[in-house]
């Protein structure tokens, strides 16, 4: 999976550039939703950048939106080709685990449970950003905008329209043959024989005039101005597009394949397919799994969580994993650049991990002590935060686990650092299943979820506080 950050930035820029003032008003707007909901689209897109596949209900809940409202927005984005959606039938909440397993496995496996007859299938929708397509769509959109404007500017390839001032009947240049009058050199209306006037271009309709030189000149100025403003205002977006162009787009695949991939990391080895899918359902309906995999901070903890006893290596690997996309893509002069970006970027998770990386990289050569100092301080803070978060969490084991785990890091971290940087990121997916061969991991990964989702907020708190 490519680095998400530049793509997320692209999505955010796109949202603000094009979907800022989209109002999602249905024709039959219920009066409960008062006020305008412009900007909602931006919020939804931003939220999606922090998730991968997410169930729409969960998304609605976390955005405090009505699910219908959210669905309308998502449908809009689906039409805009920014979002892929998937719908599938799942059981009602009560019977979800069994029926989902049965339905997903589809083999009546594990002796169809008693829940089957009273299971009601509900269609659940999932959605996910389609990064590769977003790039194309945005590029195409900009291209179209510019082309339209340019055509209008040289009034090329545009069919002139004529309108009758009396009866407002409109004609296009295609009707010219019928409209010519043999008495004078003007076009005449078929109905009232009024003299038709040429309709000026839509984009500059204020500059109404029958195409005399002055009006034409003014129109031209206006269009030029508009073109300049477009260039100016879309500059950040285009810069981002350019940056992203050569990067491989993050690909989550279809819902099923994504699920399989992620489950592969989380389920233990001896679990059968049905078990896996059941597990998936459990995660969807219970703790919101989609929150886990997306930000890098999460991933880091997930890695460590899944490998319990190999915690140092897992930890290290997961942490380094944050790095590769940056190292590989942006070249080796990244440290100062990275720092520059860290101060600018608003994404908390990345900032944190990047800062860590930068810190980790530089001093490695010169001063170990500073590094140790930093790491110690960092983990102190992290631990404290996690404890705070965990107090809120229901899962107590999660608490215990994360604290022990972070303590373990303190001692061992420095020595693991020279682990090869490139490999970790790539191999992460495969590493997980390796570790998942024995039963106890099931526990671990369930626990790991709590600290992770906690940690995401953690990062944000850190930023703001």
């Amino acid at each position, binding site marked *: 999976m490519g680095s998400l950050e530049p793509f997320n930035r692209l999505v955010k820029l796109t949202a603000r550039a094009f979907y800022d003032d989209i109002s999602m008003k249905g024709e039959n707007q219920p009066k409960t939703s008062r006020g305008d909901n412009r900007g909602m689209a931006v919020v939804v897109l931003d939220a999606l950048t922090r998730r991968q596949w997410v169930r729409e209900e969960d998304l609605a809940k976390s955005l405090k939106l009505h699910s219908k409202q959210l669905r309308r927005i998502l449908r809009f984005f689906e039409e805009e080709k920014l979002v892929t959606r998937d719908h599938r039938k799942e059981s009602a909440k009560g019977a979800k685990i069994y029926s989902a397993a049965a339905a997903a496995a589809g083999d009546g496996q594990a002796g169809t449970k008693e829940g089957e007859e009273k299971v009601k299938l509900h269609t659940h929708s999932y959605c996910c950003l389609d990064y590769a397509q977003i790039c194309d769509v945005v590029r195409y959109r900009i291209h179209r905008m510019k082309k339209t404007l340019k055509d209008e500017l040289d009034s090329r390839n545009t069919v*002139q329209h004529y309108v009758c001032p009396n009866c407002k009947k409109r004609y296009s240049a295609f009707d010219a043959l019928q409209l010519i009058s043999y008495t004078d050199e003007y076009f005449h209306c078929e109905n009232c024989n009024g003299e038709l006037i*040429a309709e000026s271009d839509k984009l500059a309709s204020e500059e109404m005039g029958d195409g005399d030189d002055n009006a034409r000149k003014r129109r031209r100025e206006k269009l030029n101005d508009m073109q300049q403003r477009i260039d100016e205002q879309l500059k950040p977006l285009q810069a981002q597009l350019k940056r992203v162009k050569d990067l491989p787009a993050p690909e989550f695949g279809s819902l099923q394949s994504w699920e399989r991939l992620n489950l592969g990391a989380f389920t233990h080895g001896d679990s059968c397919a049905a078990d896996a899918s059941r597990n998936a359902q459990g995660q969807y309906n219970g703790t919101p799994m989609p929150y886990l995999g997306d930000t890098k901070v999460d991933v880091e903890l997930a890695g460590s969580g899944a490998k319990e006893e190999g915690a140092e290596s897992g930890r290290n690997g997961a942490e380094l994993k944050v790095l590769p996309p940056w190292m590989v893509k942006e070249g080796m002069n990244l440290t100062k650049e990275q720092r520059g970006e860290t101060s600018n970027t608003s994404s908390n998770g990345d900032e944190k991990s990047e800062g860590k990386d930068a810190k980790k990289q530089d001093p490695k050569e010169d001063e170990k002590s500073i590094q140790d100092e930093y790491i110690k301080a960092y983990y102190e803070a992290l631990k404290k935060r996690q404890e705070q978060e965990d107090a809120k969490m229901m899962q107590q084991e999660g608490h215990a686990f994360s604290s022990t785990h972070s303590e373990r890091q303190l001692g061992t971290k420095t020595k693991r650092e020279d682990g090869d940087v490139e490999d970790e990121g790539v191999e992460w997916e495969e590493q997980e299943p390796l570790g998942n061969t024995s039963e106890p991991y099931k526990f671990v990964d369930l626990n790991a979820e709590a600290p992770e989702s906690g940690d995401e907020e953690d990062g944000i708190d850190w930023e703001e506080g």
Partner: protein
Amino acid sequence: MFFHIVLERNMQLHPRHFGPHLRDKLVAKLMKDVEGTCSGRHGFVVAITGVEDVGKGLIREGTGFVTFPVKYQCVVFRPFKGEILEAVVTMVNKMGFFAEAGPVQIFVSNHLIPDDMEFQSGDVPNYTTSDGSVKIQKESEVRLKIIGTRVDATEIFCIGTIKDDYLGIISDPGAAS
């Protein structure tokens, strides 16, 4: 654009033509009927180049006419959007000018004429550049680009532009005389 295609048509022939020259009569009638017509699908039929096959005739009840299915090769002309054509100006007015490329009528509206050309009314209405070096009037030959076609079942009408590189007047009869 020109195409050489095979078309099929059911020809009705009056019984008086039946005889040794039936086929010739049939082909002559086909040419008379078809050449110069326009179908929205294929464009203008310019010329029939050959008759491929004349099927078995069927006598129509009551009239005595015989219907022959005829397959014939012909050259058709169909204008396309984006195509560059050379055309003869047929009429100039304030709204633009009309031109003909063979059977096709093309209208070039005044905003698709370069901005430096202005309409001059008078005895011979024309579009002229400010220095008078280029003049578009009736009978001028222009090269234009088709930017839109309206295709009806029996008619094709085009809109053209001369506002592009290498478009515009080809030879000016006024300059020659």
